[in-house]
């Protein structure tokens, strides 16, 4: 049967038979890099189109429907437009940092791809501190935003970047604490172990109240961390005119744009892995027939289905809620989310120790 696991194993075996192990490893790295870059490109195209469609339908509009069948080629046309545009570097900007910032944004997104399990036994790097790695690396993102805002030599960009710094530093706390809830339940930081712990039920069902609370907090916190509405103060189109990437044009702008969507995908993938069982199919207790049908669906479909569901939820937020002010944003984090998630972690620990989960 065709599956991502079989393909990767076949490639691995063939390379090891044909070349010596060092060359095989190098070639595998190259193949993985190409695969990640093409995944980025596809995700960018798909997510931009999806966002515009979801936005349109929620606002009783039609959305892109002219380029190609059902407007499917719209994001291709946009990409082509951005590719042929001139990438300008404004006078008076810090040229080195200005040109470096979009690449750091992309590099962070690329690094975050490493520990994500896309399907059963299909993972770039199964490191034993996967969850810690993700939460650590994702905070480098703020550096690229600060760098872009500072190097632009534009007061609005800098303002957007500073807001973004305050925002990401704050929301990382509650995102981390809500991730910890699942880590407490499954007793491991390894992504594969966490997924395997959900073989008899996803944590959101097995862990009931504490995991539900932490799931809600996680979704709110990652929406803030990826700088999406209602927490898009870093961009704030209406007041800061795109904030930190005001001065960027052409492909450099496109890299920031792409990095935003890749980050949304990654945080949703992490959310799906921790709370919704990653590539684990949906099982109900002892309904053997039902479980077999569910097993028949490939694991990659399960993973991408759950991830895209979460992406849809985050888009739903964006097109429903108004933007928060900076003081409201920090109030929400420090007075509401952080105390609640701290208390929730305590509750989760008690539930895990007393064995009150399923």
């Amino acid at each position, binding site marked *: 049967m065709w599956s991502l696991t079989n393909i990767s194993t076949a490639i691995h075996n063939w390379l090891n038979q044909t070349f010596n192990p060092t060359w095989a490893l190098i070639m595998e790295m190259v193949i993985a890099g190409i695969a990640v870059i093409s995944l980025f490109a596809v995700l960018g195209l798909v997510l931009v189109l999806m966002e515009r469609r*979801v936005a*349109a*339908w*929620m*606002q*009783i*509009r*039609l959305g892109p429907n002219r380029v190609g069948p059902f407007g499917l080629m719209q994001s291709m046309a946009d990409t082509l437009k951005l590719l042929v545009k001139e990438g300008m570097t404004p006078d008076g900007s810090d040229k080195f940092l200005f040109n470096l910032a979009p690449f750091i944004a992309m590099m962070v997104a690329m690094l975050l791809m490493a520990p994500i399990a896309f399907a059963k036994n299909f993972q770039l790097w199964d490191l034993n501190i996967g969850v810690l790695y993700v939460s650590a690396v994702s905070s480098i993102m703020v550096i690229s935003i600060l760098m872009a805002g500072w190097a632009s030599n534009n007061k609005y960009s800098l303002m957007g970047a500073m807001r973004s710094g305050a925002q990401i530093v704050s929301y990382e706390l509650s995102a981390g604490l809500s991730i910890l809830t699942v880590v407490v339940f499954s007793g491991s930081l390894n992504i594969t172990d966490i997924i395997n712990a959900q073989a008899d039920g996803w944590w959101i069902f097995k862990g009931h109240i504490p995991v539900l609370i932490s799931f*809600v907090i996680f979704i709110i916190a990652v929406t803030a961390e990826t700088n999406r509405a*209602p927490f898009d103060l870093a961009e704030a189109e209406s007041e800061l005119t795109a904030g930190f990437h005001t001065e960027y044009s052409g492909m450099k702008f496109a890299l920031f744009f792409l990095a935003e969507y890749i980050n949304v995908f990654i945080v949703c993938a992490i959310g799906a892995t921790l709370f919704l069982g990653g590539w684990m199919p949906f099982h109900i207790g002892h309904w053997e027939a039902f479980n077999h049908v569910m097993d028949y669906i490939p694991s990659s479909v399960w993973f991408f289905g759950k991830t895209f569901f979460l992406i849809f939820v985050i888009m*739903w*937020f964006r*097109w*429903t*809620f*108004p933007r*928060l*002010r900076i*003081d*409201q944003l920090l*109030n*929400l984090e420090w*007075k*509401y989310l952080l105390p*609640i998630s701290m208390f929730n972690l305590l509750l989760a620990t008690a539930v895990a120790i007393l064995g009150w989960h399923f």
Partner: protein
Amino acid sequence: MNDDLKNKDSKAPPSGGWGVLKYLKDVFGTVRSLLIGMRRTGYYFTHHKEIITEQYPDNRDTLVLADRFKGEVVMPHDENNEHRCTGCTACELACPNATLKVVTKFDITADGKKKKAIDKLVYHLELCTMCNLCIVACPSDAIVMAQTFEHSVFNRADLTKILNKPGSKIMDGVE
């Protein structure tokens, strides 16, 4: 969410302080109001009956514009090529950015008296903001707002229009 968070800062705490109960009430109230909003947009997402998008160049023939839509100032003429404009310049005075210019002349009436009438009513569409003040100011309802909107031209001079038709004169009985 916004209101809850804002009010918490701006209002003085009532006697007895905020308390855990108030805090939890805030949280649940916020979540509830957010869910109400999401239910509304979720309803729109799943129901495509009412679409407000006008697919403009395609539905040009069947396009229905709202009554309040203001496209440009026109002067209606009746079948005898007569209009209602007395040349009182009320519209010119009302216009905030000098869009209208009334050029007057003097007609000789049947009984030999001189009577003020318009020679031209010059309208600069390129300056007009469609504020409707001229229409409101007009005492004899000589000008109205039309619903045309395809105003783009290649030569800017084409946007300067003369509203009264050539050879037109004022209607009888309009003073």
